[in-house]
């Protein structure tokens, strides 16, 4: 209904006539775009008759203008006839704005593009490591200054962070570690039953959760929850120029934003790690009681006998270190946000992935370190 159409007739003399009808508007030109483009100059002059059009907008005017300018460029005269005032005004307007405009970046050589991308990512990675080390150093200095009292500690922010990182994570960390304890006990029992050594399940639970699983899984959970939150918070503040506003007022963003998060995270990881270990042992203990008929009293007694105190200490030494690395990675990725909302997303993802990666690498390092010290 009303869609644009055209028909070609041969006018008097050696002239081709194009009769355009209907609505020459962006919603109605779909079907005439290709046929109009297909009309190529053939040496005869072209007359475009616009008397039959009902409406025209800039897109329609552009089509007509392109036709005329293509023909003129080919050396064949083309003219527009019977155009209404509106139509001629619009055609003049689009003609005035027909200048070469870049729409996409110019296409590049594929091989060079590939090389460029590889080189770019190497430089980017090196740059990232450098910036992270700089950030780490800066944070350490500010942390040191805070500890020796040269800088104030933002207690309100610290308490708020402790709530967000620690208290609010109690539920999820508790459930997660409880279930892990349960599963470790159950799977261990299946294997140990073959040797009639089911009672060693207690050793398995005590040693694996206190030293490794409890803290590691808590750290992974917290990295997923809080590292992403830090990156997103600081990233959007950066986009909103709040970080700039802080530095103009004379507040150090590291002091105000990073230190409370880092300290809060280290402290909360210690407490959450202990809580996680406890919940895992509870889960394992419950399984032993219900499924293996080891009563809680014997479970606790045996746990005390077989799990050296050093296991728990090692776990609790690792927890705040993991917390530091998680918080710093989250804050660092937040400060790396540039430009747009997509960047916030990219850096939030990076914060989670890299902090979990670093936590696991550090854990491996700790394992080697402590066994070298003789704690087996």
């Amino acid at each position, binding site marked *: 209904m009303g869609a644009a159409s055209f028909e070609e007739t041969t006018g008097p003399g050696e002239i081709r006539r194009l009769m355009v009808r209907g609505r020459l508007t962006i919603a109605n030109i*779909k079907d005439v775009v290709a046929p109009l483009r297909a009309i190529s100059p053939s040496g005869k002059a072209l007359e475009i008759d616009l008397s039959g059009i009902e409406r025209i907008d800039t*897109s329609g005017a552009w089509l007509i203008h*392109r036709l005329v300018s293509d023909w003129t460029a080919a050396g064949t005269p083309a003219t527009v006839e019977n155009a209404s005032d509106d139509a001629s*005004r619009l055609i003049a307007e689009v003609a005035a*704005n027909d200048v070469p*405009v*870049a729409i996409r970046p110019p296409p590049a050589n594929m091989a060079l593009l590939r090389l460029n991308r590889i080189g770019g990512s190497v430089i980017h990675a090196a740059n990232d490591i450098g910036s992270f080390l700089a950030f780490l150093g800066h944070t350490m200095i500010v942390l040191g200054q805070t500890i020796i009292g040269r800088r104030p500690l933002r207690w309100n922010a610290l308490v708020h962070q402790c709530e967000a990182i620690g208290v609010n994570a109690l539920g999820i960390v508790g459930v997660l570690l409880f279930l892990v304890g349960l599963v470790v006990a159950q799977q261990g029992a299946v294997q140990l039953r073959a040797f009639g050594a089911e009672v060693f399940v207690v050793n398995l639970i005590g040693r694996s959760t206190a030293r490794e699983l409890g803290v590691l899984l808590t750290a992974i959970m917290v990295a997923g929850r809080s590292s992403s939150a830090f990156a997103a918070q600081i990233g959007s503040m950066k986009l909103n120029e709040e970080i700039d506003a802080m530095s103009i007022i004379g507040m150090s963003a590291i002091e105000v934003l990073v230190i409370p998060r880092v300290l809060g995270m280290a402290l909360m990881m210690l407490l959450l790690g202990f809580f996680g270990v406890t919940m895992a042992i509870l889960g394992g203990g419950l399984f032993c009681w219900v499924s293996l008929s080891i009563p809680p009293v014997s479970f606790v007694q045996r746990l005390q006998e077989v799990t050296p105190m050093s296991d728990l200490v090692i776990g609790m030494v690792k927890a705040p270190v993991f917390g530091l690395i998680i918080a710093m990675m989250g804050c660092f990725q937040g400060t790396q946000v540039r430009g*747009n909302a997509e960047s916030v997303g990219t850096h939030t993802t990076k914060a989670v992935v890299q902090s979990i990666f670093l936590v696991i690498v550090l854990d491996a390092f700790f394992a080697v370190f402590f066994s070298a010290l003789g704690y087996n």
Partner: protein
Amino acid sequence: MAGPSLSPRLPDDADVVIRVRGLRNQFGDQVVHDNLDLDVRRGEIIGVVGGSGTGKSVLMRSIIGLQMPAAGHIEVLGTDAMNLGPDAAKDLRRRWGVLFQEGALFSSLTVAENIEVPMREFLDLPDELMDELAGFKVAMVGLPHDAGPKFPSQLSGGMKKRASLARALSLDPQLLFLDEPTAGLDPISAAAFDELIKVLKQTLGFTVFLITHDLDTLHAICDRVAVLADGKVLAVGTIAELLNFDHPWVREYFMGPRGRAATETVGRAAEGATLHMEER
């Protein structure tokens, strides 16, 4: 107290593109609009002014369907804008363009892609044609020729406004909503932007609903000015008519130091870019 010529309601047989009747908007206990009426004639540039918090943006958001009013009736381009099915709403949205205050360009798309978004969404056109259309729209709003492949974060404030205007004009709308188009621009860019809207309106023939604080913009391009206060449109008229309107805010607005400066400048200066203090 408003004379008949300053009434926000036009006669029933007038050729209007927006008709608002009895509009009521409230957030909790706070009533923003109460029994608000407004008519916008076809082909005019209507400026909407009012103090901060009088609900200028809320009025615009109600008209374009982003804010559901508590009561009232809104008719846009002859269609009841408040009770539309999804298809009718889509159809109506195709016929207007909106320039948001901060531009609201999609930050992950280039300028050219931003301009092509409405075309891709609503129409099925060859890529080549869309690129050409985006190209001349870039030129038409006065962006430099290399702006097409740039991302919004690489543009200055004035260029963002222009790119956003190009996106709003992507489908050749009959109605254009502008929310403080010159806010945050330097006086020269602001004057140039006013001029651009005026010229585009003359060539493309759309109606403009313009929210502004900028007295210079009002003087330069608005056919009529609607004053929002006390939850209503108090009066609609030319600036000359409003100068005689007896309301403390209106008098303070037009007769205050900035208002007088703008009036005098318009009296003196020839058409085109004029250099004087910007509103903010």
